[in-house]
């Protein structure tokens, strides 16, 4: 017996939630590297590309709900009213974290200079990670 569209959407929603949670953890680890381990160097191209790819990927998913390869019906169900509201709440959390991270980084840079790319990476990684975590939490609960 085939799986109904609702069931497929259900499963994919849960998978999406778990992917986001894992993605968030990865971003937080990367942010930790920027803060306490290896700062983003001016000639560190692989790191820059990694950051750009991850940022664009997760931002794309946060902005659209992802699942572009899953077919219109399944996507519509995965991104229905509840999911859209959850995504909005997640982005709001991301906004607040971005602003708070900016304030902290600003004052931290007064005590010790922070490289611009490290600052940008830390801010975006933290904001996107918390957004993903919030979205995952709301979707999976």
């Amino acid at each position, binding site marked *: 017996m085939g799986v109904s569209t609702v069931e497929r959407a259900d499963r994919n929603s849960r998978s999406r939630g778990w992917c986001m949670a894992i993605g968030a953890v990865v971003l937080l680890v990367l942010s930790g590297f920027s803060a306490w381990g290896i700062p983003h160097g001016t000639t560190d191209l692989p790191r*820059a590309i990694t950051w750009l790819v991850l940022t664009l990927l997760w931002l794309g998913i946060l902005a659209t709900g992802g699942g572009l390869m899953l077919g219109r019906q399944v996507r519509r169900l995965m991104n229905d009213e509840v999911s859209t509201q959850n995504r909005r709440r997640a*982005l709001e959390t991301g*906004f607040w974290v971005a602003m708070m991270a900016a304030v902290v980084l*600003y004052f931290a840079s007064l005590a010790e200079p922070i490289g*611009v790319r*490290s600052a940008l990476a830390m801010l975006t990684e933290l904001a996107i990670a918390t957004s993903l975590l919030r979205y995952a939490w709301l979707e999976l609960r």
Partner: protein
Amino acid sequence: MLPVVAVAFISQQAAFLAGREGEAMRTVDQVQIGAWLLLSVALVLALATGGFWFRSAKVRALMEDEVTRANRAEAFRIGFLATMAGAIAVYVLTLLEPVTGREAVHLLMSIGIAAALLRFGVLERRALKE
């Protein structure tokens, strides 16, 4: 009013960021930074709570209806996306021109807050039009 405030906020940041290239921080710069920070916090709090803190609770409750809450959520969404887009743009810009971490962070905060304010203002104005 908020779109006007947003434009004034952006203009102030433009003037601030245009003129400092690696100069040592003077007292007037510190005052300017403090003022920017206070203004930023005040604007974000106004956006988050609806502002008008000195009006009665009844009036504030009426101003905080479903439409306004939906508009605010949309404003924060735009603010977040604008901040992230700004971060990507500044990251690329650093390949062409030296930018300090502090300047980048200042710029991103300004972009995020201004974008959120502008979006909120536009949506609220649109909602009031007959």
